[in-house]
């Protein structure tokens, strides 16, 4: 009862050609090698600055001066990191950066969900105009609105405090809010209305329907939006410098004045030549700034990469 043994397929010129070049239904070996080669090459160019940053951050002052040492440091020297860590006041700055990026994000995503739901589920006059205005908030450069806000905050003593970022986020004018509104609009459009209508017949209130029936369906959109919002707030320096300077310090803000901060800690005239500011220390500082984002990215990469495809960012 043994099944008849499959004959190994004979390799003729034709099958070989098919294997190598591919057919309509499957890719051949040669085109695939080409694809891998091209993607790897582009990927290398793409990551080149990061590789350079990482390698150089591990170079000791001797390695930096040694022209023979290019890609492989003679030892993994962590002294640069120790210095950059001190200069950036890392633990404290990291904590405030997390606060500055997470708190406004939660608010702005929540408001974006409300607005997106209103746009997706209700008919009202002026909706087209509203879309236009939302798009306008995406276009208007920050420097066209920042100074009066800054002066107002100054008047109320809110400059340098987290409120200067929380208030706009609370009212739907956070950083890149328009994108999140569109994401939620698309998400709610794509969700079926049937459950919500059933809840309405059961006498649920509009807000109740939104919170209890519609929101659970939009959880992926929430996760995606919060992740992106956190990243964008984290990397934002124009608004944070104007609103927070003198108060809360974020990591990118600290990096922007790295030289100055370094020379405060290690005055150039007072320290020996190996403790002067060099590119290795700067690269360590830069790497420390992006390290938390890198970790977050690799942990959550599925959400980052697959989400946009599903979130409907592209559908507008």
């Amino acid at each position, binding site marked *: 009862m043994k099944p008849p043994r499959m004959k190994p397929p004979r390799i003729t010129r034709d099958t070989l050609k098919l294997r190598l070049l591919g057919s309509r239904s499957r*890719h051949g070996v040669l085109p695939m090698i080409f*694809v891998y080669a091209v*993607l790897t090459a582009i*990927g290398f*160019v*793409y*990551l*080149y*600055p*990061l590789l*350079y*940053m990482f390698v150089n951050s591990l170079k000791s002052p001797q390695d930096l001066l040694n022209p023979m040492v290019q890609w492989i440091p003679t030892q993994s020297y962590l002294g640069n990191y120790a210095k950059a860590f001190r200069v950036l006041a890392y633990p404290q700055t990291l904590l405030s950066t997390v606060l500055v990026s997470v708190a406004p994000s939660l608010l702005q995503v929540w*408001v974006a969900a*409300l*607005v997106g739901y*209103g*746009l997706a*589920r*209700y008919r*009202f006059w002026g*909706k087209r105009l*509203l879309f236009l205005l*939302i798009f306008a908030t995406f*276009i*208007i*450069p*920050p*420097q*066209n*609105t920042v*100074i*009066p806000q800054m*002066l107002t905050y100054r008047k109320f003593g809110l400059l340098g405090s987290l409120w200067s970022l929380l*208030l*706009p986020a*609370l*009212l739907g*004018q956070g950083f890149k809010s328009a994108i999140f509104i569109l994401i939620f609009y698309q998400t709610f459009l794509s969700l079926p209305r049937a459950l919500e209508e059933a809840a309405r017949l059961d006498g649920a209130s509009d807000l109740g329907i939104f919170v209890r029936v519609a929101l659970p369906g939009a959880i992926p959109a929430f996760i995606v939006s919060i992740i992106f919002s956190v*990243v964008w707030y984290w*990397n934002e*320096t*124009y608004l944070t410098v104007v609103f927070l300077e003198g108060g809360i310090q974020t990591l*990118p803000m600290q*990096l922007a004045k*790295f030289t100055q901060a370094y020379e405060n800690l290690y005055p150039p005239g007072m320290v020996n030549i190996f403790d002067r500011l060099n590119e290795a220390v*700067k*690269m360590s*500082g*830069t790497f420390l*700034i*992006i390290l938390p*984002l*890198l970790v977050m*990215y690799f942990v959550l*990469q599925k959400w980052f*990469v697959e989400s946009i*495809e599903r979130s409907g*960012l*592209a*559908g507008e």
Partner: protein
Amino acid sequence: MTGRRARRELSFRLREALYGYGFVALWIVGFALFTVAPLVETFLYSLNNVTVTATGIQMTFLAWNNYTRALLTDPTFVQLLIEYGVETLVSVPIVLIFALIIALFLNMDFRFRGLFRVIFFLPVVITSGPVIKELAAQGVTAAPQVANSPLIVNALAQVPPYLRNPIEYVLTSFILILWFSGVQILIYLSSLQKIDRSIYEAASVDGASGWETFWKITLPALSTTTLINAFYTIITLSHFSENKVIRYIYSQTYRVEGGIGYASAMSFLYFLVLILLLLGSFVLLRPRTKSEL
């Protein structure tokens, strides 16, 4: 009878509209407070000489003087503005073409596709102004091996400056430009996946080559996406905090001879150029055939 039903219908519509406004109310208030009001205020500043005092601000009316000053007597601003315009015009096609090529690759079915997707999206996560500035200062954002090669440098020396500057910009910021294509790659990718498979099958039955299908089916299907990506690219590049014009406006804000009024006028001129760029790309890229979304 019909009158009453019509009234009920009306009140139903009214109710729906009211709740709709309720959901977007926060945004409308915020728009008035944090977008319209500051925008108008900034416009007023731009027509005045603004000095900040301990108690508030003092304004002396200058009419359009700040604008004429920026355009006619400030050589730096006009030059930076032109550079920004040219660099954006050069970068956008590079980003779009690169994003499309990578998206086409990633849309194929092969192993490690996810890994490559992760790589090409990585820069989105880490591009903050100061990080880019540090990397650019090390010269690592340039096209590796190409930007400094004597051949290129000599060849560039022969080219007139209005051509040389954009080329040099592309060479020295090559990776940086590519780094701005992460989101666009994903947007292209998702549009590619929405194209109906059966069209490709029909085309292949009719004997169309891959090359023909790309130009006749894929590209037309992506026309709206391309417009979205162009807008996204232009806006991201223009809002980027290391943008030279933004840096200049920012530095002028806190300077005595510049001041808030002058910086505001420049902000509006910059905004105008941005709108022109968006309009230009719209005219060029708007979908010719009506495609349904």
